[in-house]
């Protein structure tokens, strides 16, 4: 009897030892809702295919919360191996001293890797001096979603969505007059729409080439363009056309419930919106609205990317790298794109999607691609800003939009108030990093 116990005990120890040999990769992310299921499937498929690696994907709240937790984790030595950080956290991560730029990882492991295989605008957004720092995973941009059924009811052509802000206003008045809706348009991530509109017209957001040549010292607004933009939004709000719908994804519910007809939102909401609207109404998508008499720029890459923490063992780094390579596989990249609406990140995945007729089958998945590939990519203004205290500045811009739309402050005063705070933040950041 004693011997049986002893053998059983040894077996338990051996199994435990085997489990120990597995390299664990902690991965913190901010994917909720329909995106979460898609990500979890990818992670479990990877784990099944790699018995020696265990990627543990942990949902750590919103992007803001995830970044905060990563910082806290890093300062207390409990940070994960891999973390998903939203695009506005990019400069903070670059300056953090807490990460390994991904372009260095293959070299560290004695491998080579073709970084040019990723879709160009994404690479440009996340590169420092031509080298990619985070792994480009969940990239998105913003586009116009509209309810084609509403357009038909108001006697508008469902295949002629508005191109300019003037048309938004004109269509909005028609939709309200026809009694289809009582408010027409809402934004997801209002602070981000402001960034998009500046880049879309090739205007800088901050000095020093949008923070890409050197750390920015001040923001460029309020200038004539940003004031015009704010005035337009305020006017639309007063007319009841624009319904301010709160931060992030709060406005999606109004759109999918048919309470509004148009929504400016991230492409990452595409599949969520299509699924919810299925059987209820036909969803159309198009480019972001612009001003007819202003220069052309481009929509900006948004969403988030994956950062590799510094200070890992070689086994851990190798496991992380295996996982990142797995995400670059054509089938995985396609699965991710089809399930979420995020860009497929590799050119091979893009080609296969085209060859298989996916973009004909679901043209809404092509919209954002055409928008970003057709825009200019040669100016810092069109590429979008990269600022250290960007999360903070976004918060100030959002407050400014709320104050302008509520009429608490004039558009220019609201922008000026936000700019003063943003400039203080940029100065403080410079004093700490320089």
């Amino acid at each position, binding site marked *: 009897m004693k011997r049986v116990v002893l053998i059983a005990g040894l077996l338990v120890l051996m199994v435990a030892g085997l489990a120990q040999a597995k390299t664990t990769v902690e991965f913190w992310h901010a994917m909720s809702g329909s995106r979460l299921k898609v990500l979890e499937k990818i992670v479990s498929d990877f784990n099944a295919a790699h018995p020696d690696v265990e990627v543990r994907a942990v949902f750590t709240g919103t992007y803001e919360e995830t970044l*905060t937790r990563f910082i806290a984790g890093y300062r207390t030595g409990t940070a994960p191996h891999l973390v998903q950080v939203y695009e506005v956290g990019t400069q903070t991560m670059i300056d953090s001293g807490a990460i390994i730029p991904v372009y260095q990882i293959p070299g560290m492991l004695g491998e080579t890797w073709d970084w040019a295989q990723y879709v160009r605008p994404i690479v440009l957004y996340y590169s420092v001096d031509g080298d990619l720092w985070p792994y480009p995973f969940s990239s998105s941009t913003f586009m116009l979603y509209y309810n084609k059924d509403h357009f038909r009811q108001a006697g508008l052509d469902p295949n002629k969505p508005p191109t300019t802000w003037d048309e938004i206003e004109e269509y909005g008045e028609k939709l309200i007059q026809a009694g289809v809706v009582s408010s027409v348009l809402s934004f997801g991530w209002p602070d981000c729409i402001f960034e998009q509109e500046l880049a879309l017209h090739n205007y800088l957001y901050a000095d020093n080439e949008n923070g890409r040549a050197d750390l920015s010292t001040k923001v460029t607004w309020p200038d004539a363009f940003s004031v015009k933009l704010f005035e337009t939004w305020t006017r639309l709000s007063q007319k009841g056309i624009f319904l301010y*719908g709160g931060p992030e994804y709060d406005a999606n519910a109004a759109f999918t419930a048919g309470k509004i007809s148009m929504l400016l939102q991230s492409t990452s909401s595409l599949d969520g919106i299509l699924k919810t609207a299925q059987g209820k109404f036909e969803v159309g998508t198009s480019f972001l609205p612009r001003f007819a008499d202003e220069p052309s720029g481009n929509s900006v890459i948004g969403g988030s990317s994956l950062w590799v923490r510094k200070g890992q063992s070689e086994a851990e780094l190798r496991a992380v790298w295996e996982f990142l390579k797995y995400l670059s596989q054509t089938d995985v990249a396609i699965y991710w794109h089809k399930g979420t609406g995020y860009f497929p990140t590799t050119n091979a995945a893009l080609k296969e999607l085209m060859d298989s007729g996916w973009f004909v089958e679901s043209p809404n998945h092509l919209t954002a691609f055409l928008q970003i590939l057709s825009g200019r990519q040669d100016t810092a203004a069109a590429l979008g800003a990269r600022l250290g205290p960007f999360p903070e500045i976004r*918060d100030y811009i959002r407050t400014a939009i709320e104050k302008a739309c509520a009429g608490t402050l004039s558009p220019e005063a609201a922008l000026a108030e936000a700019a003063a705070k943003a400039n203080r933040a940029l100065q403080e950041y410079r004093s700490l990093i320089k």
Partner: protein
Amino acid sequence: MEARFPGYRLLPYILILPSIAVIIVFLVVPFAMAVQQSFYRTSPFGTTTLFVGFDNYSQLFSAPEYVQSLLTTLVFAALVIGGGLALSLAIAILVTRKIRGVGFYQVAFIWTYALSPAVAGIIWALLFDPSVGLGTYLIQQLTGYRINMRVSGTPALLIAAAAAVWNMLGYNICFYIAGLQNVPKEFEEAARVDGASPWRTFWRITFPMLSPTTAFLLFTNTIYAFFQVFGLIDILTQGGPGGATEILVYKLYRDGFIRLRVNYAAAQSVLLFLMVAAMALFQLRVTTRRAEYSR
């Protein structure tokens, strides 16, 4: 001490040591660190630290939004404490009457306290969603006024206060029901025999007899309105629109954890501590002196 523990001079100190240790580790040390942090400025990842003296404090006092946040907090606290206690007392009086099914009513009013502030926040956010909310719809039908709590500050603050009162109602009613049951019936009967109106009886007898309960609730509700509503605000409004519901504790969180200004937030936490400590002392002094304990 010696009188109670003859021959054991050190024993009482050893016995309270665990509590003291907990207080030091979890309250005194973090507070001392917050005070220290408030004199520095640190980069997000803690790579650079600069000594800035009173700069964080002077920035606070020169920032109009801090004063605004202070005013918002006072208005919010007044609504939550004043409105909440008055409403709870009124309901408690109604549900302690001899009526059929009183147990049902009592439970119906108390259960809201079983919900966490986060859940309460989700319920109220759905109710007053600007486009699909039932509350928004009903108010529009009744008054023709369409509220959008994501844009207009005053409705947002009122909705947040209403949600906070609603969430705390059960707790307050519980204590008031208990308090009312301790008011000797003879006093009220005597007053009635003497021909006092119910209104007069309430203000002259019931309310003063309830003062220990009110004093206690005043204290817990202050803590609630200043700190515990955090989850509710976070889910309902995130401090918006335009900072209209950014009460002090929520501003501290946003500055420290979203805007990544840890040291600025530390300065705020020091000030908030001083304010609440002063208020707590004041309340304890005033209410313990004036509360009529029936012992």
